[in-house]
């Protein structure tokens, strides 16, 4: 009975836009059981990705954004383990699946591209082989058909002369071309969800611009959803519809991109913006957030941002803040936050 109720609640929550989410993550906990203690890398994270949208996931290293992504595809390896929560992708509950069933989800329903294309591609196989391998694993096609599909995908990601490039090895491609090949591989089975984990961090700005344009075009063409993980606020502003800000394994703020950039309510989000040097605003002084990210083995009591927060009150040290709705689609995990931003005054 109680599980039914819970499901009903979830659905109500998820249907806030009147659309069913493609991906719904509820209270996800991924912990790492190390010799020195338990690191709660992801600790009670909930969010949705709706069909056709781009969700930006922002946070600094160690905030749990990559572990969240790996958890969705069930790629977390020991000593890490998903210890709680549910992950529902297109109506299918992923945490309960067998490894063999999970393999059919990866690549076909949800695919991932990683930060470093050079270490994600196998150096001893041609890129054509690596793409056709993925295609033939998920689709009943012949070798030649798979090869044609691979050439088509390489063309889509704007690799010049794809029929020739297909026989080349990763070391023969530049960094930007390798990332394109990775994207082609990830999209070769038309997944409905693409998880991009810092896809342009290793690339130069001019190449980054090309890859981001490409990702947006492909998302529109193929109608897929993108979960874009990055630490670069500029990238998020340019391509995400909604943003989720993470800190030390928790979601601290979720809202539309517009609200996060123009009406941020969590002190951490505001701190991030004040730390960011902006082009053409040379005279603006930076206001760094003092202190450092807490040790995941020894998280502070109460709010995890409390030791670095200028607005911290007694309650913040005693009680962990829950996400509260402070505006349309805008939730914030902070005791002092007010919907009009008066707490910063």
């Amino acid at each position, binding site marked *: 009975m109680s599980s039914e109720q819970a499901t009903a609640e979830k659905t109500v929550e998820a249907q806030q836009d009147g659309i069913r989410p493609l991906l719904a993550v509820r209270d996800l906990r991924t912990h790492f059981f190390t010799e020195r203690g338990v690191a709660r890398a992801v600790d009670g994270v909930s969010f949705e990705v709706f069909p056709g949208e781009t969700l930006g996931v922002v946070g600094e*290293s160690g905030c749990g954004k990559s572990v969240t992504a790996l958890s969705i595809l069930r790629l977390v390896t020991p000593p890490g383990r998903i210890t709680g929560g549910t992950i529902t992708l297109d109506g299918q509950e992923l945490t309960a699946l067998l490894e063999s069933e999970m393999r059919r989800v990866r690549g076909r329903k949800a695919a991932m591209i990683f930060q470093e294309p050079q270490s994600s591609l196998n150096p001893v196989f041609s890129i054509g082989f690596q793409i056709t391998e993925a295609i033939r694993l998920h689709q009943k096609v012949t070798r030649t058909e798979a090869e044609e599909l691979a050439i088509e995908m390489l063309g889509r990601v704007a690799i010049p002369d794809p029929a020739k490039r297909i026989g080349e090895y990763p070391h023969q491609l530049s960094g930007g071309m390798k990332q394109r090949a990775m994207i082609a591989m990830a999209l070769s089975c038309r997944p409905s969800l693409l998880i991009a984990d810092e896809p342009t961090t290793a690339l130069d700005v001019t190449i980054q611009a090309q890859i981001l344009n490409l990702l947006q075009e492909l998302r529109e063409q193929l109608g897929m959803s993108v979960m874009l993980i990055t630490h670069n606020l500029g990238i998020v502003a340019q391509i995400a519809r909604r943003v989720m800000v993470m800190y030390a394994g928790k979601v601290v703020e979720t809202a539309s991109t517009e609200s996060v950039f123009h009406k941020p309510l969590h002190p951490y989000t505001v701190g991030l913006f004040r*730390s960011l*040097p902006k082009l053409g605003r040379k005279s603006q002084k930076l206001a760094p957030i003092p202190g*450092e990210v807490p040790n995941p083995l020894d998280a502070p009591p109460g709010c995890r941002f409390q030791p670095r927060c200028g607005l911290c009150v007694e309650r913040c040290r005693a009680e962990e803040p829950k996400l509260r709705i402070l505006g349309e689609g805008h939730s914030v995990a902070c005791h002092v936050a007010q919907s009009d931003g008066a707490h910063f005054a």
Partner: protein
Amino acid sequence: MVMQLKQDKPPLIKVENLCKFFPVRRGFFGAPAGYVHAVDCVSFTVGRGETVGLVGESGCGKTTAGRTLLRLLEPTAGRVLFRPKEDADPVDITAAQGEELRRLRRNLQIVFQDPIGSLNPRMTVREIVGEGLAAHSIGSRSEREDRIVDVLKLVGLVPEHRFRYPHEFSGGQRQRIGIARALILDPQFIVCDEPVSALDVSIQAQIISLLESLQEELGLAYLFIAHDLAVVEHISNRIAVMYLGKIVEMGPAEEVCRVPLHPYSRTLLESVPVPDPRRKVKAASLTGGVPTPIDPPPGCRFAGRCPLCLEECGQMTPPLREVHPGHWSACVRAEETEKVRAIPAY
């Protein structure tokens, strides 16, 4: 050819036609089949207490320029003049030998990008920071200890932590250790080679603020090498933009970032994603790849990718010329570049 500061004071560092070529060999014993022109006739100055930013994409030679300037790499050609005192005669760093070079190095330090790889994991912070004092036999044992404590306080570290090893510190703290090491000999000039690129935004801001306050307090001059344009604009007085071993534009930081005089600088600036969802900009993407730096053909190195390219650009290398006072560009169409709209502030 050498760009001067607006004020007439002689610069602290004057780099003249600095070149660094690396031979490309075929086989282990083979004669060089060509040369990588990593740094190709680069000239600039750094004034006292000034920060000059050096920007460019990976492989443009900015790191090699910084290292060759300090003679961590032997230059192929060119001079680097260093003037320790305003009224003293300049010393040529590239010609200094033995003891003279060693003494010069007290004044010239470097902070590296990778705060993990640049600290010896088997040495304590005290040993890492104090090594320079020992190498130059400065002070007694207790004087050295006092100096180490002072410098650690200066960079915002707890002096009691000096007996710890680098792995016990976070990325930001390790970068502070690297800065302390550079400061221990009280230098006049520090090359900062991507000092904040490996750090998170909030920590990056801490380190930038630290470098700024140290400069104010100690009158340091920096050559700040980085690829993040917003960071470079923030910290620098002047900026030099490099492309394939050459400086293509140089001028006051705000001018270069607002009204760039070279099509390459403009493309770089327009490619930076703007952190404001109300200003969606579709970044102008460059066509073509970066040409090989091995024995580059004559002509402008950017010609193959340049939207303004003329026929003559492929024939002769355009020299840097002063388009506005203190603002130099190596583009024959610099004046037209300027007329395109200014890069708006965020």
